[in-house]
């Protein structure tokens, strides 16, 4: 890319500190006038070596570390990690704990989508939209806060259960927040589908076809926007997802507009899931009875073995590969983040687009650089 810079071309380094993405990230773009000729992504600005740290922490300590892989969806990270350990150690999670996990993860999915969508709207110049979504998100955050005691990094799941039961009045709180949120989401959809400037900026921009998306390994909303109904919650159900009624939201266009639309639909679907869970949730213990697992887990030694466990993150497929050697610390943990392939796909997607669409396309992927760097 640097070898041949033509007479009317210049290289612009977007980042590492740039409002384009929440997190340091650098895009070196070669421009001819306003058009991107070539581009390249540089990563690693916040590489903190989580995989190495996890090898040196006990299993229980690891929960707090995996929270910080991707700060927008901490609960699903925990779910993937805890799920790995539970599979290896053969721990059964009681049903009530499973329901609580599903509720919290879906709430966390909604808040992540709200933030991603609002941020995306601000990238096309719609700053007010960002304010609206953040405002709705704050209500949701306080609901999550009332259960987990934290806003971003929860450390809520434990092996075999969850840290705490749902507080009193949780159902009413959720109902109240969802009432407002439903209206808000309908408003967003109306805004997005009627605003002609917004449509001119998004329809037909950054189009991925289903074949290309599969080929480059994208997952989550960018893939579902191309019409592929790939969702770990359906394809490889974990927790109680197989008992719940929900559909995988897809669009066919595969462009920026479709991705945002998928997120809007998914938020509605998540709300539906949470409401079902609140109706169906059985009473009972939140930790397996008759075992040592409880609020304070003992020092665990997990039988040697290897396991790959994956869950559906707000951004796509989140997988953990864990190798255990029988000691109280994992031998090796590999984190497979959903954004990794998505961010890789940026340079080919950005070829030939104007500068203004760089942020539109990069923003619509809803990337989280922290998770790519780890």
């Amino acid at each position: 890319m640097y070898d041949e810079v033509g007479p009317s071309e210049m290289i612009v380094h977007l980042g590492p500190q740039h409002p384009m993405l929440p997190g340091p990230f650098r895009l070196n773009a070669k421009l001819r006038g306003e058009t991107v000729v070539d581009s390249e992504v540089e990563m690693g600005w916040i590489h903190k070596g989580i995989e190495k740290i996890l090898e040196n922490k006990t299993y229980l300590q690891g929960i707090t570390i995996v929270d910080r892989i991707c700060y927008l969806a901490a609960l699903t990270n925990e779910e993937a990690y805890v799920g790995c350990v539970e599979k290896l150690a053969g721990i059964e999670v009681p049903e009530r704990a499973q329901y609580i996990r599903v509720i919290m993860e879906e709430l966390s999915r909604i808040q992540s989508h709200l933030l991603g969508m609002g941020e995306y709207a601000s990238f096309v110049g719609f700053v007010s939209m960002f304010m609206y979504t953040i405002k709705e998100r704050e209500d949701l955050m306080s609901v999550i806060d009332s259960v987990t005691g934290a806003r971003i990094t929860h450390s809520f799941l434990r092996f075999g259960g969850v840290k705490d039961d749902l507080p009193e009045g949780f159902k009413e709180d959720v109902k109240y927040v969802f009432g407002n949120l439903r209206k808000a989401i309908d408003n967003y959809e109306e805004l997005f589908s009627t605003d002609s400037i917004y449509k001119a900026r998004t329809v037909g921009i950054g189009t991925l076809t289903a074949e290309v998306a599969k080929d480059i390994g994208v997952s989550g909303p960018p893939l579902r926007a191309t019409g592929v109904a790939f969702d770990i919650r359906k394809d490889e159900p974990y927790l109680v997802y197989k008992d719940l009624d929900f559909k995988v939201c897809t669009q066919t266009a595969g462009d920026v507009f479709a991705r945002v639309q998928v997120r809007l639909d998914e938020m509605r679907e998540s709300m539906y899931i949470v409401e079902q869970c609140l109706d169906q949730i059985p009473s009972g213990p939140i930790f397996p009875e008759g075992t040592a697992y409880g609020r304070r887990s003992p020092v665990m030694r997990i039988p040697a073995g290897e396991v790959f466990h994956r869950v559906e993150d707000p951004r796509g497929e989140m997988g953990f590969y864990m190798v255990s050697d029988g000691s109280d610390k994992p031998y090796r943990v590999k984190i497979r983040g959903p954004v990794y392939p998505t961010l890789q796909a940026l340079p080919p997607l950005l070829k030939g687009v104007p500068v203004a669409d760089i942020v539109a396309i990069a923003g619509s992927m809803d990337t989280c650089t922290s998770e790519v760097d780890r």
Partner: protein
Amino acid sequence: MMEIPEILFNPWIRGILGLCLMGAIFMGAMIAVWFERKLSADIQQRHGPNRVGPHGIFQLVADAIKLFTKEDIIPANADKFLFVFAPIVLMGSVFLMLVAIPFGAVIINGNTYPIAATDMDISILYIEAVSAVSVIGIFMIAYSSNNKYSLLGAFRNFARMIGYEVPLGICIVSVAIMAGSLNIVDIAQAQSPLWFIIMQPLGFFVFFIALMADMGRLPFDQNESEEELIAGWITEYTGMRFGLGFFAEYIHLILGSMLVVLLFLGGWNLPEMLTSNMLLGIILPTAFFLGKVAIVMLAIIMIRWAVPRFRIDQVVDLSWKRLLPLSLLNLGWVILLALLGV
């Protein structure tokens, strides 16, 4: 021409009045910024500044003091002469517009005395010409700061301005034809019974959009576009140099709103019975005029916070493919009216 009181020819009086005018326009810009911050907060379900003074009205004073006392950084590879000189060009072009724009009028005994620094026969052309100079100021700022974001912003600015000056000019021509004069005071006076917005609504529409693009308000702020180009053309400027660019933008906003009122919304014209009284004649026309200016400003600010941003190629498309034919249509309509002798 109307008679002007002798005392106004005294250079000292003129100087003091001029200074008052400058102060007033700076105050106006500050009020506009405050207005915008409060209004945008309202639209975005926030409070906006409310700690410094009642409802945060002194917020801009604090900002100005801070900007004045910031370190003045000239980047190492910047073109130093241009870097220092460019904000002055920008500010100058905006202030030169002040020379010709009337800020209202005083009606005494049925005679109208516009409050304006000069009385030119071609003032509307002059305003057009001078306001186009600001693009050179912006380009000098961007070029001298040796920053690629700035340069991209400046190129976008050029592309946009070239596109929008044409429909803007055609709309002004159609107004001038209807009024039969190139003098902005005469144009305002010509709307005495009927505002031009009623005679040529299409012209108003095109003029309003083109003016917003000219001022770089949000659907058209590609030269600044925060999320792509950090702060666009003004990225490298610090302290008061940044403040100058910022103020120039808002003074431009005020003057643009005044132009809209003067050309299409009837200026200061009131029914004769309201201005027959001496006191009312001094106060009312100017108040009426400034009130309309405030409403136009409100509209422009509200549009800014309610829409996303165009891409630069869409902006240029809009100007050449939509607004230019529409403005020509409007010109034809005006000529038809003139031929029919309406």
